[in-house]
């Protein structure tokens, strides 16, 4: 129930800049995911929003109020930590009741609110246990209950699903989405897992090396990655990259791979001419956008050798070696596609769906 604004936020540890001039607006009731590889500054950003780490420079506003000098206990946010950070010497009940007891609520109210939170997260049976008696998933629910038991202005979650097993993680994703919609509260969620980000976020803010790279809703990020980093970070299996060169022959534009020339729209050619620094480019093609067949069907097919086969049931991932240059890349085929290691096949890229990046700046051109 708060709009969070980060303005030129910078954090340095000694000489190292961990968060670099970050500008981000998180809307009221929005589910915002901060996504990035480990060490990109996302947890530090979250800690700064919570007030646990001082900023080196910049401003943080909650609903227009400057929060820079407000200590964490006065910010009225709730946080779930990666380690869950349960109070080890308190029972589950007292863990959940703690934020209310600090606020000196009457005992009867504490009991009823703790029970309501426990009910919501289905942990009523655990209230008398101690943290060391709980499984990872149970601890995680207790940590969530401790966060939802009061009505905070915002929830901050730091990799809350990274310590529980895969099956429970998938289940908890849906639970968290429901929870956020039920509570109608701003949620800022830090993760390095792009699947989590894609499946839960209203908007994703991708960070890399302390810098904000792109903020958009999940499908926009998937369809229009701002640069090569985002393209490669989002999607499973990850996007394939092929070095290529731009050629203009007569009035036609081509992207030149080692053995084939892909003819592209003139419009696109013009964009490349305007935006690219040189004619060295990178084609990004998701495995789903690589077509594979047994026969050569056009001049734009290139020969590949099957390097490995990964049948997943829903689809089969082929690891293919581009014969002419030795590069191995992945292609997703239907689940019944038959191939064996060493088979020679023909691959082509879906020109409607490929991305083109500038090799020097790594920025997306399309």
């Amino acid at each position, binding site marked *: 129930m708060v709009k969070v604004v980060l303005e030129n936020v910078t954090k340095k540890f000694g000489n190292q800049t961990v968060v670099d001039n970050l500008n981000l607006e998180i809307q009221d009731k929005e589910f915002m995911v901060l996504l990035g590889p480990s060490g990109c500054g996302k947890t530090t950003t979250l800690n700064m929003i919570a007030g*646990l780490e001082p900023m080196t420079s910049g401003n943080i506003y909650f609903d227009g109020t400057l929060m820079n000098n407000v200590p964490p206990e006065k910010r009225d946010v*709730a946080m779930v*930590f990666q380690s869950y950070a349960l109070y080890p010497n308190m029972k589950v009940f007292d863990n959940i009741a*703690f934020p209310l007891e600090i606020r000196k609520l009457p005992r009867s109210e504490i009991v009823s609110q703790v029970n309501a939170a426990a009910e919501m997260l289905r942990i009523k049976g655990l209230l008398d246990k101690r943290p*060391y008696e709980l499984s990872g998933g149970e601890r995680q629910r207790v940590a969530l209950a401790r966060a939802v038991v009061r009505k905070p202005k915002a929830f901050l979650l730091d990799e809350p699903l990274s310590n529980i097993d895969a099956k429970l993680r998938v289940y908890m994703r849906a639970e968290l989405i429901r929870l956020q919609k039920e509570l109608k509260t701003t949620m800022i969620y830090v993760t390095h897992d792009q699947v989590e980000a894609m499946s839960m976020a209203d908007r994703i803010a991708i960070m890399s090396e302390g810098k904000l790279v792109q903020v958009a809703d999940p499908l926009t990020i998937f369809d229009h990655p701002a640069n090569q980093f985002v393209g490669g970070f989002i999607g499973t299996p990850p996007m394939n990259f092929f070095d290529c060169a731009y050629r203009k022959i007569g009035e036609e534009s081509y992207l030149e791979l080692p053995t084939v020339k892909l003819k592209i729209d003139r419009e696109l050619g013009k964009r490349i001419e305007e935006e690219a620094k040189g004619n060295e480019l990178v084609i990004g093609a998701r495995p789903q956008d690589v077509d594979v067949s047994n026969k050569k069907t056009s001049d734009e097919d290139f020969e590949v050798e099957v390097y490995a086969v990964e049948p997943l049931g829903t689809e089969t991932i082929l690891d293919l070696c581009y014969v002419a240059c030795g590069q191995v890349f992945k292609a997703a085929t239907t689940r019944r596609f038959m191939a064996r290691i060493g088979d020679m096949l023909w691959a082509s890229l879906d020109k409607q769906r490929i991305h083109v990046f500038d090799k020097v700046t790594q920025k997306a051109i399309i």
Partner: protein
Amino acid sequence: MGKLRQVAVYVLAVLLAVWSLIPIYWFLNMSLMTENEVASVPVHFWPNQPTLANYLRMLGFSASAVVGTQTVYFLPSGYAPMIRSGMINSTILALCVTALTLAVAIPTGYSFGRYKFRHKNKFLFTLLMTRALPPISIVVPFFMLYQMLNLQGTLIGLVIIYLSITIPLMTWILMGYFATLPLEVERAARVDGCTRVNALMKVVIPMASAGVGTVAILTFLISWNEFLFAWLLTAGSPAQTLPPVFPAMLFHIIDNTGLAAATMLSLIPVIVIALVFGRFITRLKIVDPVTTIGG
């Protein structure tokens, strides 16, 4: 091979325990005998006629013991008042020192363990150096200073000296302990609404109870056992603690069984701590909330 090794470890542990416990066993044995039985040849490794008479007379009571078929009566020992007041003084002293040490060492150790600040390393070095000084090198200056300040022969004077020993040491130990506690739990307390001090009181110290308990016990024992300063500054005064009583007994009147009983009395806190708190400390469940999944 594994089994053999285990056996070897046990044998070694038993040998070590025997080695260090023999003198205590011997004094315990003696403290439960009458002088006659101590003098008997061959020596008795356990009293034939165990008696608590020595303890009673060292504490200032009349006592009786059966020797052979006769009952022998004993008068209270002349050292009893010294032993009794020594025990009381030592207890008061040790409790005061423990309370004050904890009051200072907990916040200091916490600050050193958690925060970065200017000149931190210099402060730490100073802490360590106070422990590097040989006590004998500061005892004489203290002696003269205390004469000037009229602190000689007072418990307060002794408390001040002991604090200068225990605070740096316990700060050092607690610093290491606080540094190992999960930072995120403390941060959770802050976000949940605690001020810094509140988080320390309500979350960090309870979480550190094993470390704080250990430090309390160590401080108590150091104060209870300390001899050099106690002897030089309180010997012969009403503030005399228990340890200086022993050289007086050893050099003046020979009362071996009495000395043995008094020695055993001085071991009471150690024994209590070993029996009660030893179990308490191993039972404390302080676990890292992430790595220890399940109970």
